[in-house]
């Protein structure tokens, strides 16, 4: 299993249910626009993802909307939306013109709003929807929909019922267990899960004695969150059998392969594009070499192949059914055919 040297020898394809992507690299919602297609190569992307769109026209939050933090960005953009009519006539065609599959990220401030936008985009050339559940639910005092697995289930089931396209569900990391929402989303028909959105944080301007951001709290992204996102991808991918898309702090091909090993079938790149607009194109170019470092010559070979010694401990932590039967059953074993069980671990299982 030598390290492959030629791009042509390496199979970069990956699948999200019926949606086959030429490469596993795509932008994260809100961190990409068709504007970029004029300054960097975008043809090698597996897909493009739109900024989250609402049915109605909306403004974003008060400035400041973003600031830099150590190895990260804190943002409270809100979700400014041109509304579905303008999106259809002006925005979507520019994404389509890029020539790779288009994933439309949808949001809502009420459960029904997600369903409404799905219906409104029913006839459009959309290759997949990504349901952004990190929106506040105005009917529940503004609590994030994604923090409540029942509401995630309600939203996704309704979207699923209204479209035959793949439905990706982008989970929030601001929960005690990402596994719960992941399982619910899978059970109501999600095609794949994007893990994850930004982590809630706060930046303080000591001179003004005020939060830096107009909206006080913001979401943290960038290299600072990479280990957190890797952990969530690992947990979620072991708990479900639908593909997972890794997102959080990815800025190089080696980062991408780390996420593939942890269980992702594809990756999204957000913050890294700001400082280096050609990050994603470069990642695709360097992916064969990075896969080679992991001893692989295709994407599918490495997905979920993280070798973990302490199987039973991890499964216990996750509450994976069947993990305590001592046979290494349940998802862990199925997702990880090459799982190594260390004798010490076996011995520790009652």
């Amino acid at each position, binding site marked *: 299993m030598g390290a492959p040297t030629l791009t042509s020898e390496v199979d970069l394809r990956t699948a999200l249910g019926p949606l086959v992507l030429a490469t596993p690299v795509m932008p994260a919602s*809100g*961190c*990409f*626009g*068709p*504007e*970029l297609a*004029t*300054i*960097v190569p975008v043809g090698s992307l597996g897909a493009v993802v739109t*900024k989250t769109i609402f049915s*109605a*026209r*909306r*403004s*974003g*939050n*008060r*400035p*400041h*909307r*973003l*600031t*830099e933090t*150590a*190895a*990260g*960005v804190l*943002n409270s*953009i809100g979700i*400014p*939306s*041109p509304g579905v009519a303008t999106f259809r006539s002006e925005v979507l065609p520019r994404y389509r013109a890029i020539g790779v599959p288009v994933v439309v990220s949808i949001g809502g401030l009420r459960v029904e709003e997600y369903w409404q936008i799905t219906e409104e985009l029913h006839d459009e050339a959309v290759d997949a929807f990504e349901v952004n559940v990190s929106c506040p639910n105005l009917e529940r005092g503004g609590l994030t929909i994604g923090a409540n697995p029942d509401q995630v289930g309600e939203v996704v089931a309704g979207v699923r019922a209204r479209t035959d396209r793949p439905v990706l569900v982008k989970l929030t990391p601001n929960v005690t267990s990402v596994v719960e929402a992941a399982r619910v989303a899978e059970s109501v028909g999600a095609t794949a899960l994007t893990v994850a959105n930004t982590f809630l944080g706060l930046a303080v*301007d000591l*001179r*003004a004695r005020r939060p830096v951001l*107009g909206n006080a709290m913001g979401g943290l992204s*960038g*290299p600072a969150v990479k280990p957190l996102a890797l952990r969530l991808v690992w947990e979620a991918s072991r708990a479900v059998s639908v593909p997972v898309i890794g997102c959080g702090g990815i*800025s*190089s091909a080696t*980062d991408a392969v780390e996420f593939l090993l942890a269980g992702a079938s594809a990756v999204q790149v957000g*913050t*890294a*594009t*700001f*400082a*280096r*607009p*050609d990050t994603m194109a470069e990642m695709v170019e360097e992916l064969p070499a990075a896969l080679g470092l992991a001893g692989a010559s295709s994407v599918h070979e490495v997905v979920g192949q993280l070798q973990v010694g302490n199987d039973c401990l991890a499964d216990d932590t996750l509450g994976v059914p069947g993990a305590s039967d001592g046979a290494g059953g349940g998802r862990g074993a199925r997702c990880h055919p090459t799982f190594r069980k260390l004798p010490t671990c076996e011995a520790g299982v009652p």
Partner: protein
Amino acid sequence: MTAGGAPTVPDLPPDPTETGALPLDDGQASATWAGSGDAGPADGSLVMLDAPATGARPSLTRAAVVSNDHLGDRYWRMRLLAPDIARHTQPGQFVMLTVTPSGPSNWVLPRPMAVADRDEMQETIDVVYGAHGWGTRQMAAIGARDELTVVGPLGNGFRLEPTTRHLMVVGRGIGLCSLSLLAVAASQRGAAVSAVLSARHREANVLVPFFEAVPDSRVVTALDSDGSSDPQVLGPELRILLEETPAQQIATCGSRRLLRMCSALAEATGATLQVAVEAHMACGMGYCHGCSAWVQGVDQEGPLVCRDGPVFAWLPAGR
């Protein structure tokens, strides 16, 4: 503008009356105060300029650093080899400059910087910056021949109005960098230029030689150190100047106090007023929505500083 002494990064606290390029005097969030949706001074409002007829597309350049010189006080000038940007930049446009070299970095946002000067023959652009926070201090440590990622030219710059025979530019500190190419363009078109250059003290007024070199220009300096930058002092002085030689157009950048003063001058003399504003930015190209100029209302996104600005028209409240 020539290189100064040994490059050292001065460790100075930010000056609250001079926060980068644009009018942010009292540390309030960006330009929110000027929007219809927000409470703010009633002395005027920002209005979007029309989109430029022939906006050159931005490009991504790995630009070699030709020189990086300390100009004085906390100010530096970086000269970058960027042929396309040198060719296409219009007055008031800016670049996004990525400070850190490639590879995973602790610092993830590029810095917006006005193009202070350009040289089509040499294919270079100049960025003049104040070393304040992490990114700009890092810039000051960059040596010649390093390569930086630069995207530009970006934004909607100043409009030199066809009727302008006398242009007055009024800038403070680093805000003058957004006005320098406008002064050059006006002069090239045969207009007279009055350049009002405000700074904390003489050593901080680093762009004086640049504006003095603009043909047909008159330079007025205004300093905190001798009280001449106080709008109560400067305003009447400029009023006299404008009565002698009426200006059809005023352009300002770098201080909210000066914007108020210019607003009163424009209103009194009938000149039009344009202002360059600032905002925290991530993409600089209009897709991240990080740089909203103001909140327009719950159901409509306001203009973006990077795409619809950074230059806006200013309508004094009386008009």
